[in-house]
């Protein structure tokens, strides 16, 4: 797959997230504000994290495919302490949510939640995808849709 960024630059940008050849397309998508999730070209099943084969049909025809990022919060925690990361201040607990994406039952993506006070974030709420920059790198996040679910 052709990319506008060299492998060397891509790896150095995402080394702290454990990038490898199987996840390279997903991370390259982030640079263009695209949430790419691996999808099977044979049976259309999505999976995440990126694997080199479809677990449903063993096809190797899997491609990082754009998803909307719309979904529902399935898992939710608030970090009162955690790893050092640019711009993360745990003095306000840091939300992390696993969101069940609308594209496929049971398919989840994990990111932080932005734009709402912690008291308003809860399991079961609908969210949409947004992006913010962390040390200059586009980073996916979720934002609550409308009011409380």
């Amino acid at each position, binding site marked *: 797959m052709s990319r506008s960024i060299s492998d060397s630059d891509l790896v150095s940008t995402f080394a*702290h997230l454990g990038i490898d050849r199987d996840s390279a397309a997903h991370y390259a998508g982030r640079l263009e504000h695209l949430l790419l999730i691996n999808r099977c070209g044979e049976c259309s099943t999505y999976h995440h*994290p990126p694997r080199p084969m479809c677990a449903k049909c063993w096809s190797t025809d899997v491609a990082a495919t754009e998803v909307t990022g719309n979904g529902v919060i399935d898992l939710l925690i608030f970090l009162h302490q955690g790893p050092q990361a640019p711009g993360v201040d745990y003095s306000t607990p840091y939300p992390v949510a696993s969101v069940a994406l609308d594209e496929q039952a049971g398919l989840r993506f994990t*990111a932080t939640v932005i734009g709402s006070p912690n008291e308003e974030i809860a399991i079961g709420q609908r969210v949409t995808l947004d992006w913010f920059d962390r040390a200059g790198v586009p980073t996916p996040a979720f934002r609550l849709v409308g009011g409380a679910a």
Partner: protein
Amino acid sequence: MSTSSRNPMKDLVAFAGAATTGFSAHNTDRTPLSLAAEACSKLLRECGLKASDIDGICGPSSVSAGDLQNTLGIPELTWWSNPPIPFVNQVIQAASAVHAGVCDTVLVYHVPYRHAFFTASALRDPFRRVMPAIAPGGNPDTMWGPIGYTAWASRYIHDYNVPKERFGLVAINDRSNAQDNPGAAMREPMTMDDYMSARMVRWPLCLLDMDVPVDGADAFIITTTERARDLPFSPVMINAAVLGMVDANVEDQTVSLEHHGHHVVAKALKAKSDFWIDDIDVYFPYDGFTIITLNWLENIGFCGRGEAGDFLAANWDAEKNRILINGRIPVNPHGGALSEGGTQGSGHIREAIHQLQGRAGVRQVANARRTLVTAGGFFYNAQGLALHRD
């Protein structure tokens, strides 16, 4: 999936003994190798074994089998392995090697250690800082590893409307039991107020929901049951041993708390063993996080979905401030991972052996004959052991 009851190793391989250094919740000035060597030499002396009686070594990768062999002067090995923890991995590999005839008598060890990743105070020790990193860092946007347990604890509370005090019963049980264990790292009594006011780490789990990083070591002898009968302590036979994992094993992709590694272990261990929860005298569910213990109680069949907290309250020994299932079965009498120390299962198995050998001192469960150890968590490391004596 079919669950096989095939188990040709049943009762033919046994633990001949177990020993420990005891555990410290503070940085010691000891290396993992030094702690392993202490526990192993103590055990070999107790069992009346010479270095030349050992022909197999198995432990975690943090102390290589070669370094331990060299340190203890064990002249010749025909088998060794350093599989990943938790500790039933080590037990199954060693027992399988004995049963297959690759070796006869294995020295098995584990070294829980305050690695720099675990705590800020461990990070301050320069000798610990230069050890290889055991976990990734720098990304808060993940449910990776230990964080996944917090995520599913949050979901459990949401789905079943469980008050946080129910999690506290797991922590208090361990602390009450640890008061009878001189080797435990945390022995100060714990009240529910102490638990509820503990520092929040990752909401909804607080410091006292998480196991204690410790320095220390456990050691074990695994050999044929026949050989073990010639040694000083009664053999603790491995009736059944399994690991369990499902395909959706990534923390944030796990299907639900009703479908993960625990359920594979419960089904397979029940199919392969000769006894089950009504037959045991003491129970060892893993407790690296309180949610794991609550979920094990449900998954092994003591109670229904979401009912573990109420089950603990109904099976509470108010006098000793601890769990006593059906007024009879203590749970993690050594203090478990939350109070003896985070041993990744080795402490649970060591205490199980001491209980079945009648060597548990003031913690001894009268006439203990059978036990189940359900070790590990939900994602990559669920494990089970059924142990008994004659």
